[in-house]
């Protein structure tokens, strides 16, 4: 049920990853690139954690992370992360949420981003969601590619996704079909 929740997290995570990246101490710095669009900072084998009030709220990894100061652009390959929803939040019912994507592109200043390529989200509760691309824009996550999700008591495919990052809206759109598990008879 909450896979889309988890999907929503991926955008947040991308932003978190980007934000953290700006201050991160890289374990390995790549050689300075000469092309104009070369990143100002390129990290490989990145691992990061984001803290809030002394609590780890998100962790992330990426095989490679490039940052361009102009436009505050971020690009990560084979990125992944884990979010711990705030207790009592709408997402808390899902437990921790893990996501991976082949590529994450973000603009930190504009709070925009896109995760693409085998985007997968797993929630501790048992939800799994897969899609090819998710856009993050402010407080919203959108996908215009097929979304397949399954979890406790449901399995669904949709043509698109619309979600708020706080979990208040999680909606598969533009034609959905699937199965709902009905309770067994006593």
């Amino acid at each position: 049920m909450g896979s889309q929740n988890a999907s929503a997290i991926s955008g947040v995570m991308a932003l978190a990853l980007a934000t953290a990246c700006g201050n991160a101490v890289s374990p390995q710095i790549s050689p300075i690139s000469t092309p104009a669009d070369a990143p100002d900072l390129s990290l490989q084998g990145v691992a990061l954690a984001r803290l809030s009030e002394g609590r780890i709220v998100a962790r992330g990894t990426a095989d490679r992370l490039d940052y361009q100061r102009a436009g505050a652009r971020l690009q990560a390959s084979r990125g992944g992360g884990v979010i711990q929803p705030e207790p009592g939040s709408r997402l808390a019912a899902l437990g921790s949420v893990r996501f991976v994507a082949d590529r994450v592109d973000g603009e930190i200043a504009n709070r925009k981003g896109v995760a693409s390529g085998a985007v997968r989200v797993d929630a501790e509760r048992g939800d799994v969601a897969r899609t090819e691309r998710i856009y993050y824009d402010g407080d919203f996550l959108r996908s215009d590619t097929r979304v397949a999700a399954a979890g406790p008591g449901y399995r669904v495919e949709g043509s698109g996704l619309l979600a708020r990052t706080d979990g208040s809206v999680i909606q598969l759109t533009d034609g959905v079909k699937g199965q709902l598990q009905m309770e067994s008879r006593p």
Partner: protein
Amino acid sequence: MTGAVLLLAAAALPSGPLDFKARDMRIEPQDRRVVLDGDVHLSRDDLNVTGEHAVAEYAKEQRAPPRRPRGRKEASDAIVGGQSVERFTVIGNVHVQRGSRTADGEHGVVDVKGQTLVLTGTAQTPPIVRDGSETLSGERILLRLDSEDVDVVRPKVVLRRSLAEEGQPVPVKVEADHLLLLQARRLARFTDDVIVRRGDAVVRSPRMEARYDGEGQLTKLELRGGVDVRQGERRATGQNADYDAKARTLVLVGDPKLYDQGDVLTGDRIDLALDSKEVHVERARGRLRPEAHKGERGAP
């Protein structure tokens, strides 16, 4: 009479996945429910339900979801998760089909654990069950999914085919406060303010049972607890009455009385033929007023 309707619920709804289609699906994990919007289709075996919106509510108890071993290929028919829907509500132009029978209403609730489907509507458009030309409506129609019973509050039944009449069949309309259809017993039990209308005949009784044969054809109506029959100027009463659907005669017993233009007849039993309007009184006694019948055909 309600024989065809008796056959409405064919078999119990088995547990397992419920297939759905819709325009959008909203997931509300905190409220443990899923909302489907736009051209909703739900199906499970021979049960199909459509409507404008649907809300699936999950059981409250939290059960640990089964974890699939890593790398194992996902089976397409795998049971979906460890939680299950305990109730779903369908709203707006609800249409139910099961086998050849259909039902319509504005609001439908399926209680999966209770194995019931309750249909309601509005005063203008009450819920209705159809089987061929026969219809059954009421304020609230409960279809049992695990047995073959139907429970109707304030039923209004219009039946045309079950009387097996020659020529043009006369529709029989039945109203009551409550109707319980017991398929296994081939029985329809009407209770509280039962009114049966057939042509110009109106029969009232506190309770009535309709019995059917194996083909769903009405064989008998049993009215109990005080019966009042009116047909034109004629009125008959009795404690109980049986209606033979094939012979189309109503037999009143239990201090039966016939009132007809001032005549009052009583006997051990009174037989009324609803079509020919002939009356047979067994061990008749009473008061006749010949002057009231002057001018009638055959009168002196």
